[in-house]
């Protein structure tokens, strides 16, 4: 059956080369299969992709499963995208292994794959546009240490324990604290699924259990907003809250001082660079293997700087 599939793939590739494709940029079609859709972060990635599509005169579609556990749904989306014979595909894998057979199919059909956000553990993607989450979370740890004078108890409210970003941000933060700041104790790491309410409840329980807690790190938008809500509802003063990503509520919390600051990725840049690399690859141009889309620390002092404001989203 594999040979059969290979044959189909080869036929697809032939058809692709036979067609007068690349002659007009209007014909270039790039579907992006993301890890999510409803979250403001993904909408910002989509905005970046749409911006690049407009500038380069190509057609882009953007899809992702309802939540980041639906690995098989994402595979179905990838299969449907492949059926449309695209010129290139942007893909943010929920689970790299699960997607390998389809990615191989894309490779055999000569469709270049650009990995984005957390990347794909495979050599099939011609390029990866993503944030270095470990380094970004380590920066959050440094800022936390600075704000609590290098000593005390801190907690982590993470979004999940299975996804790459969840693992990297947790480990990036925890390992930096353990390695560099011996007087800081991480009392607990809890998982709220990135859900605002769940993370709020978690935070309240953590504060209840640790009256002397000095700081909390929320690893994504939903977690961070939940931490802010929890601290507010408990009426606790002096707990240093550090967040991740942006969004209206998180920006407000930073402005009014409930949150000390946050790490922001560059979601618009992720979407933009993915489409740009996809179009270049579709036209046979060379693209860099890794595209670092960057991250920034922002707080009350620089939230309105043009450089920061450009990568924050509501």
């Amino acid at each position: 059956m594999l040979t059969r599939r290979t044959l189909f793939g080869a036929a697809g590739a032939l058809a692709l080369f036979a067609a007068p494709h690349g002659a007009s940029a209007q014909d270039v079609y790039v579907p992006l299969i993301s890890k999510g859709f409803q979250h403001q972060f993904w909408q910002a990635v989509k905005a970046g992709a749409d911006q690049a599509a407009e500038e380069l005169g190509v057609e882009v579609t953007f899809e992702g499963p309802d939540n980041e556990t639906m690995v098989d749904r994402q595979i179905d989306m990838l299969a449907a995208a492949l059926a449309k014979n695209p010129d290139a595909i942007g893909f943010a894998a929920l689970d790299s292994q699960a997607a390998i057979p389809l990615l191989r199919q894309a490779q055999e059909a000569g469709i270049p794959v650009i990995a984005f956000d957390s990347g794909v553990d495979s050599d099939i993607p011609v390029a990866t546009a993503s944030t270095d989450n470990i380094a970004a979370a380590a920066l959050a740890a440094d800022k936390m240490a600075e704000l609590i004078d290098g000593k005390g108890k801190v907690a982590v409210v993470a979004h999940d324990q299975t996804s790459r970003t969840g693992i990297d941000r947790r480990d990036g933060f925890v390992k930096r604290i353990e390695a560099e700041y011996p007087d800081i104790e991480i009392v607990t790491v809890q998982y709220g699924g990135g859900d605002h309410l769940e993370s709020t409840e978690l935070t309240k329980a953590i504060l209840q259990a640790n009256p002397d807690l000095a700081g909390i790190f929320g690893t994504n938008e939903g977690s961070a907003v939940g931490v802010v809500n929890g601290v507010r509802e408990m009426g606790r003063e002096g707990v240093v809250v550090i967040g991740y990503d942006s969004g209206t509520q998180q920006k407000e919390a930073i402005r009014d001082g409930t949150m000390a600051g946050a790490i922001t990725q560059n979601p618009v840049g992720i979407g933009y660079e993915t489409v740009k690399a996809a179009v270049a690859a579709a036209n046979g141009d060379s693209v860099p293997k890794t595209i670092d889309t960057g991250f920034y620390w922002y707080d009350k002092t620089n939230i309105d700087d043009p450089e920061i404001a450009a990568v924050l989203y509501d």
Partner: protein
Amino acid sequence: MSAVDAPRPGLGRLFSAGATQRLLAFASLVALLVGFSLASPNFMQMSNIIAILQATSVNGVLAVAVTLVIITGGIDLSVGTMMTFCAVIAGVVLTYWGLPMPFGILAAIGAGAFCGLCSGTFVAKMKIPPFIATLGMMLILKGLALVISGTRPIYFNDTPGFDLISRGSIVGSIVPGLPIPNGVMILFLVAIGTAYILGRTILGRYCFALGSNEEAVRLSGVNTDAWKMAIYALAGGIVGIAGLLIASRLNSAQPALGLGYELEAIAAVVIGGTSLSGGRGTILGTLIGALIMAVLTNGLRILSVAQEWQTVVTGAIIILAVYADQVRRRTAN
């Protein structure tokens, strides 16, 4: 429940009642296929049809399991996370313990049957409403799947051939040019087997009877509790098969997956004409319902319809399908 709903022979029911709804559902399926084919040349391609069937297989098997429970007048909200739990059990047996593949398959199906038996006991013996009992099971199994797996996906790289359960194609190796994945054939086999049980066995007959008028069945001296537990256990075993299918397809047991899958399975059952109040339903209808869901989702994607609208359309289709069923039944009365 009135005397009018008294149980009729299951076999006759299988072929007569609900036939119109099945026809209607089948007609909708054909209409969708034709519509999408006309709208996009990329839709009616062998590779895309295979993708649709592949996308149907897991939801289809889950829907078959839920159909059994719904016919008894119950509901099973735990099938999504139970599927995940069974996949994790297979992962423990095959990857952590390193046992050969048949043990993993038996363990997954056995774990499902045991979970189903637990749900059945809660419902039949402890008189907990099925909605609550299976809601509890849903959460218990979601948690246990995370606990047992250590919250990490379990990969099946050490079990060669495991991914072929779903991804391979025996049909394709016999008939070149028809690479129907094994997962789809397993769905068909499960559906045929379950339809046989429903139509030709005592278990199937009592399944309908329990959903129509449980009290009457009990008063006629039948041990309704035992039969109900058996039906939940059977449904659980089928969910175990779904667990194997998804694990094989992803070549991993994903412990966080599963929530939400029960609702899609129930949607497929309802589109297929099975009554949520019990006593009425067919496996063929459920199969068509699951196919309609998959064709719709895939077709809208092929047409590049914006994702937010895809969800709206799917919801509307579910309501339309059930409304059509209501109209048909009202005119029939």
